């Protein structure tokens, strides 16, 4: 009565629930990418010249690059000329002024996704920016945030309204030269969120962006920039879903975080892009560059991610720990099933004295999926007394899946302490038997044990989203007790 592969498969293999398509007229540019497309995107957004210049530099640089192949990922070549780089739901010329002007079909879409945009129905304490294909369609609680001095708006709006902030910070953490997908994103990004928390402000609510790919044959290239000025604090969450389609769709986002002295940014992701079907047909290719810069002393950046979707995940949310006493954290749960592949992890770059980092990675691999943790901990000679602790655990479910661990540690300061531990195993038969002896069905027992395995990460999620994440794992979770 060891773990029966059938039951385990049922556990991880819950039907994708966000696979519907919204039937809405869209303004979509034809597939293909050249300088004219870059100019077109920029002009559709009404961008200032500096923005267009930057995009073009990025595009020209991208053309000199080749797609990276070092990750443990296999996919057919991506035809970058076969993708549409811009798609927006049809709407009035200047965009909706308020929710009343937003197409009801769009509101209904987000309703169905569990993200009501009307403030009276919205999750209390969470402001949402809803990005549909290439554009932001609504941002809630803007007024309340404005009162606190917090800027939370679509990226394209920020380019128009706060060009000096964008010019000052854009590309300073992830330069357009950083890597292939970052260069592509820099050239063609269409929207995303911008957050600025002024000095000393504790953001009064959770900020959240919900990304939705709807159109076929489009790529989504959003860009998020969060700046936390001295002594400020913000917690931000992103969620993402897409319809079920037989073709693969490309998602190549860039997220830049900047934390000044004594500032703290908590960035959580629940990634549930369409993973493809059980035969590996369809699904999102998710190539994402996320990096946080702890620029100031005593600053802190914490990444929490629950990666459940996407056919391919290539993602390494990282921290540059420049400031003295700065803190970087990475908490990750990644689940891969069927033919999903994920190569994910983090980089902690210790530059500042006494900088500290913690990495907790929990991987669950099932079906025929392949999953890798890839991480780098680098201690510069300047990082006196730096500390890192890394824990990577993998759980295997089924004989045809794989779990791999590739941690790199490069240490150049003799007062640093770097510790790494990793384990890989399947659910122990005696744990399963113990739960079943107490009357739990095998499926419930597996759910419970898997959930326990991920607990260290789930408890880092904002309360409102912990439940969503747990449900996403199809694990019925601990109640109010505990």
């Amino acid at each position, binding site marked *: 009565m060891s773990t029966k592969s059938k039951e385990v498969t049922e556990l991880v293999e819950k039907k994708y629930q966000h696979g519907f398509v919204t039937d809405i007229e869209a303004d979509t540019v034809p597939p293909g990418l050249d300088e004219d497309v870059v100019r077109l995107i920029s002009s559709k957004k009404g961008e200032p010249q500096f923005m267009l210049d930057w995009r073009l530099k990025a595009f020209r640089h991208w053309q000199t690059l080749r797609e990276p192949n070092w990750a443990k990922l296999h996919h057919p070549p991506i035809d970058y000329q076969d993708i549409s780089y811009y798609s927006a739901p049809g709407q009035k010329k200047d965009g909706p002024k308020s929710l009343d002007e937003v197409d009801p079909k769009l509101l209904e879409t987000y309703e169905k996704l569990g993200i009501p945009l009307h403030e009276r129905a919205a999750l209390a304490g969470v402001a949402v920016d809803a990005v549909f294909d290439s554009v932001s369609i609504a941002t809630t609680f803007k007024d309340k945030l404005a009162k606190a001095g917090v800027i939370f708006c679509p990226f394209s709006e920020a380019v128009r309204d706060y060009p000096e902030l964008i010019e000052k910070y854009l590309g300073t953490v992830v330069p357009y030269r950083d890597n292939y997908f970052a260069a592509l994103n820099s050239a063609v990004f269409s929207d995303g969120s911008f957050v600025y928390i002024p000095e000393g402000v504790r953001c009064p609510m959770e900020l959240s962006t919900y990304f939705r790919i709807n159109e076929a044959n489009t790529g989504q290239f959003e860009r998020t920039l969060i700046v936390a000025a001295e002594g400020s604090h913000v917690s931000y969450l992103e969620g993402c879903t897409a319809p079920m389609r037989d073709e693969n769709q490309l998602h190549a986002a860039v997220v830049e975080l900047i934390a000044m002295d004594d500032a703290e940014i908590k960035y959580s992701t629940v990634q549930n892009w369409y993973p493809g079907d059980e035969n590996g047909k369809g699904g999102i290719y998710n190539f994402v560059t996320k990096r946080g810069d702890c620029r100031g002393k005593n600053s802190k950046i914490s990444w929490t991610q629950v990666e459940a979707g996407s056919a391919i995940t290539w993602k390494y949310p990282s921290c540059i720990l420049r400031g003295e006493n700065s803190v970087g954290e990475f908490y990750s749960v990644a689940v891969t099933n069927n033919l999903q592949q994920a190569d994910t992890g983090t980089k902690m770059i210790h530059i500042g004295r006494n900088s500290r980092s913690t990495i907790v990675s929990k991987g669950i691999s099932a079906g025929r999926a392949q999953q890798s943790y890839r991480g780098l901990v680098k201690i510069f000679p300047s990082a006196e007394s730096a500390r890192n602790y890394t824990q990577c655990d993998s759980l*295997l479910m089924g004989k045809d899946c794989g*779990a*791999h661990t590739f*941690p790199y*540690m*490069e240490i*150049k300061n*003799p007062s640093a302490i770097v510790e790494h531990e*990793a384990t890989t195993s399947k659910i122990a038969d005696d744990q399963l038997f113990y739960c079943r002896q107490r009357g739990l069905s095998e499926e419930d027992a597996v759910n419970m044990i898997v959930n326990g395995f991920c607990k260290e990460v789930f408890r880092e999620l904002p309360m409102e989203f912990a439940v969503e994440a747990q449900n996403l794992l199809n694990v019925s979770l601990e109640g109010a007790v505990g």
Partner: protein
Amino acid sequence: MNTAGLEKVWRDRPADWLQPAREKGMADFLDTGFPDRRSEAWKYTDAEPLADRSQAYLKTTPVALDSAQLPTESGDSLPILFVNGRLAPGQMLPAAPGLQVASLNEAPSERQAQILSRLASFPGRPREDLSALNAAFISDGLWIELAPDTVLEKPIEILFSSDGAQAAAQPRIIVSVGADSQCKLIEHYSGSGAGLVNAVTDIHCDHDARLEWLKLQLESTDSLHVALQNLSLGRNSRARLVQIELGSQLSRNDLQANLAAPGAHVDVYGLFLADGQAHMDSRLEIQHQAPNTTSQESYRGIAAGQGRGIFNGKIIVQPGADGTDAKLSNRNLLLSSTAEIDTKPELEIYADDVKCAHGATTGQLDETALFYLRSRGVDAAQARAMLVRAFAADIVTQIPLERLRQQVETELSARLARDMETDTP
């Protein structure tokens, strides 16, 4: 890197009976040339000094010395002496019931087919190591065969010495341990001058065999040292490996252990000291290819002065290798602000009924222990050296021969005393 010069040197050599193996080796080598930093396996080590010295030294065939200092059976081992990669002439090769030892350069003709087939079955991994180049330029080597049910009490101790000549030693050692047999093998590298060693040792253990294998590397600080050990373990066979890397300015060691049949088990203990200007790169790849195979690896590294220590330990569990139990631990001490440690433990797992774990830590000496010793009147440098020796002791005590254990302890003490005087963190 230009390999045309080497190819010409190779073509100009007189052919010998090893020619088929040399040809394959040269073809494999030319296919990729010397490894470069783009290769993941050479991420932290620049092979250029190895390439330069290979090009310079391989032009001349090393001469075998007639040495007056032929080893005599010292009582605790069966010694065999190589000088500059060639078997020193005039020595009696060890003889014992069930044991056969032959030099590669003078292999009896009835053995040659067997040796060639063994050379052909180990293609090396071009770009990952220099074993193909070794095959192309084998300087000499040994064929050692232990018949089934043979217990060899004394270890075979192969002394690889370099006398300061500008010689490229390219020894190839091929060992077969028969079923239910037991043996101990020691590879002991030492010497003076700016030598170059590119050694390959290939050992097969048949079912239920027992092997103890020590590699002791005490080359001079001007030498370059590259070595590959390939180990294949049959059903229920067990091997215990100890690797001590203390010498060379650039040392690169690759261990590939294949647990090829059910019940096979390997223990690996390793230690390196990268001090002065030394660059030490140690790699392990443990392949669990069959069900119920087990392994345990414990590797310690010390970097001091301007030394750089690199460890890469990979455990691979192949599909179907259920019941695998594998544990790897890597601990490092980083003792100076100009030294560096790079470590990469890896797991690659394609079966589900497994228990695999690895851990790696890098840090410094325990301040409390240091303070304790100093409060007892031990000066700081000495206290530090004591604690580093204690850190190394877990590995050093695994050395199977008392004489060599003492030699290593003496060497470590002398080196650490010097390192601790000059380094203040």
